[in-house]
């Protein structure tokens, strides 16, 4: 068995959507007797923004955790870049080029924004503990290169003003942006965003949408995101998977999903005449 094959195409706004980057095949995930995900298959193509939506408790976060390798499904296969992915620990997944943000922000509150972002470069630090302590030659060069990458991302996300601020003192919207920055410095192939707009006001949502589109456009990063806000999802995604009670009930472009009767009934509510 291998992954789905697609012909690359160019979108209206000039981005190139390539072949399959990741494919989930017949995934089933159970916690004891509870079935969180039931026989779901979908794929993520290179360069696209792929959304997973669904009502509360539909299994979206579980699905993202399967993609990120945090959960290991009882049934089904995860294929990444042409190979079947074995069971992995989170740091091994990170080395494959998958980075993520969390629904309930997971940053180090006592550390500065810059230090938090630098932790995202962990996989690029090859010098040994002793090298680091002496901080000469390789270790110094490495730190400079990592800092440069971190600064590029700080510039990109426009958070220069809070570079030295401890994360604990930041408002929620900015913390979310710092988390995105930490994921981005890892230079991921695939970026997973768990409810990037949750708890934000309209302006913050607009900013975040802009950043997500810019990341995709500027770095060519493939993005899979979970989101509650339908408006945002429909605006920025190329394709959408809709889940309900652990099952996939729709998959396609925003327009297709919007006109899918099952999706309308389950997620948007049944229309009454």
């Amino acid at each position: 068995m291998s992954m789905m094959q697609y012909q690359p195409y160019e979108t209206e706004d000039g981005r190139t959507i390539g072949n399959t980057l990741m494919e989930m095949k017949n995934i089933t995930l159970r916690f004891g007797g509870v079935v969180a995900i039931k026989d779901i298959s979908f794929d993520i193509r290179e360069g696209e923004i792929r959304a997973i939506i669904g009502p509360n408790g539909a299994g979206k976060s579980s699905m993202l955790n399967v993609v990120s390798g945090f959960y290991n499904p009882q049934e089904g296969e995860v294929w990444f870049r042409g190979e079947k992915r074995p069971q992995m620990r989170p740091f091994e997944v990170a080395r494959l080029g998958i980075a993520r943000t969390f629904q309930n922000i997971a940053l180090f509150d006592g550390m500065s924004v810059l230090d938090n972002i630098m932790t995202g470069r962990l996989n690029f630090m090859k010098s040994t503990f002793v090298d680091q302590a002496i901080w000469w030659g390789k270790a110094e060069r490495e730190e400079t290169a990592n800092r440069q990458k971190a600064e590029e991302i700080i510039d990109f996300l426009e958070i220069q003003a809070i570079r030295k601020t401890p994360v604990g003192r930041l408002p929620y919207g900015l913390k979310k942006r710092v988390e995105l920055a930490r994921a981005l410095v890892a230079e991921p192939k695939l970026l997973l965003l768990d409810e990037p707009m949750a708890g934000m006001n309209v302006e913050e949502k607009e900013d975040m949408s802009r950043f997500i589109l810019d990341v995709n456009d500027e770095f060519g990063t493939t993005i899979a995101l979970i989101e509650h806000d339908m408006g945002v999802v429909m605006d920025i995604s190329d394709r959408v998977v809709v889940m309900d009670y652990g099952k996939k009930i729709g998959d396609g472009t925003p327009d297709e999903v919007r006109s899918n009767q099952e999706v309308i009934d389950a997620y948007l509510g049944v229309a009454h005449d």
Partner: protein
Amino acid sequence: MAENTAVSGVPESVPALLARNVDEFGSKPAYREKEFGIWQTWSWAEAADEIEAIALGLLALGAERGDYVAIIGRNRPALYWSMVAAMKVGAIPVPLYQDAVAEEMAYVLEHSGARFAVCGDQEQVDKVIEVQETVHCIEHIIYQDARGLRKYDHTRLHALADVQAEGRAAHERLERELRSREAELTYDSTCVMLYTSGTTGKSKGVVLSNRNVIETAKNSSEFDHLRSSDEVLAYLPMAWVGDFIFSIGQAYWTGFCTNCPESPDTMLTDLREIGPTYFFAPPRVFETTLTTVMIRMEDAGKIKKRLFDKYMALAKRVGPDLLDGKPVGGMDRLQYWIGDKLIYGPLKNTLGLTRVRVGYTAGEAIGPEIFEFYRSLGINLKQLYGQTEATVFITQQPDGEVRADTVGVPSPGVEIKIGDNGEIYYRSPGTFVEYYKNADSTRDTKDPEGWVATGDAGFIEEATGHLRIIDRAKDVGKMADGRLFAPKYVENKLKFYPNILEAVVFGNDRDMCTAFINIDLAAVGNWAERNNIAYGSYQELAGHKQVMDTIQAHVEEVNRSVAEDPMLSGCQVHRFLVLHKELDADDGEMTRTRKVRRRIIEEKYADLIAALYDGSSSIYTETEVTYEDGRKGKISATLEIRDAKVVEPAGQAQVAAE
């Protein structure tokens, strides 16, 4: 560059000054910009090389003599370079306010007929592209920051780096042309065109020649003994004449270094890191900083607070005298020295003002308390009075003669006279050439002998020769009973309270004065927090009973102070209301330099003004607002109108009897 040097040996254009600086200061820093967390530096030689490349690139794109080149963006070296590069090819740079919405830009771009627009980033490019739907003069857009622009149609859109690369590649072909165009620049050729902020009506394009810019830069640099080792922070809008004179005029004349902040939000951090020696800020910046300091001191521990209060009281008493070199007792000197170690020094360091040798404030009147606060710390803050048409300088305060209520003596080379109606006129080497495509306005403003009407009313103090400004000549009016009406005078008094951000006083041809008040969200919000007062929005806070009480107390205090001057006692505020939204430039209520546009406010809030005069105690109103991205919305509110106590002046009966 011998061919464009005047007989006197003075270089006759800004590009010629650049060439001189490369010879004299070659490896000294000319520009710094913080990027990627590090201050990047360009020496005069390096900057000249970058400018040369942009100029050649502009030639390659077909720039002609006399073309207008719009410059839009925040203060960045590359945009300053683009201005000088435009001058080199014989074109005229026109810097625009970067926060202007597309419609406002359309007017300036169309009026100037700009063929090129150099933009800082995508936001500005988007606006210019939007403008292009109606304005067709713009042929090429050049941008610095490529982010988000990769997928745009690039047939008429170019990255600045590409323009430079093309210019460098074509230097063999174009250098001769560039040299000859540079050589054509004279003292009387146009240096720059700057649009006035337009307090009344549409803004006008003020044409300034090399003579205006260089003579003014020379005179003012000598006045304050500026030198090539000085440092300035360029953070005020590039479209404003002050920034042009400081960051290009004086910088090129004296050869000092211009530092650009990393982003608008990091201004205060960058200020602290650079520690400028020559600093300029409008009163608002000083006010905001002082408010922040005071708010933080409110939250400080008891010991710190007590130390701060004790030494600030001392500083207030002796600081200004020390700064002016007046005699101060030995004990006070010792105390002040201790205060400097404990309080003033660290405070100045936090504010980034430790190294300031010369500091200026202008544009609006500054509150005496605010002004004295900075001077008492030992910061040589001075006032100047100027306008775009004068290439900034009309009057300024010499060291040792600094007072809060005057704007100083005429700048070197400037003559001043006061008209019959009290209006101030001046004549100087910096007097502008003309308003672009507006001969009528030029004639109205500048008479054949070169005297320019400032539109401000004022008088010269006999004893000191200092100029005092009363108000905008147009705004000074008469009340229904013939008493003098000077709104700005009262508004400034009101604005000196930290709780009041903005005030607009009405009363021309009326029987009494009334006022709109804008609260300062930072100050009032902090007060609310400390007093456990909950509020959900600006509007709710503004209408809170206790806030209204506080504002009423302020208004009544102002009334008492206004009543002391028999000439102006009629200007006491009888009734007022607190506005439900901040006055905003995006809504056209203020200029981009944050001056109130009276006529527009009078029209827009006619219902509120009517309510102020018909005696009602509250009014329901709906107001249209424009968001930063240009969308419009509506907010509605019911506003309370309060009566304020007024003081009956002793001389009132006499005035009324006239």
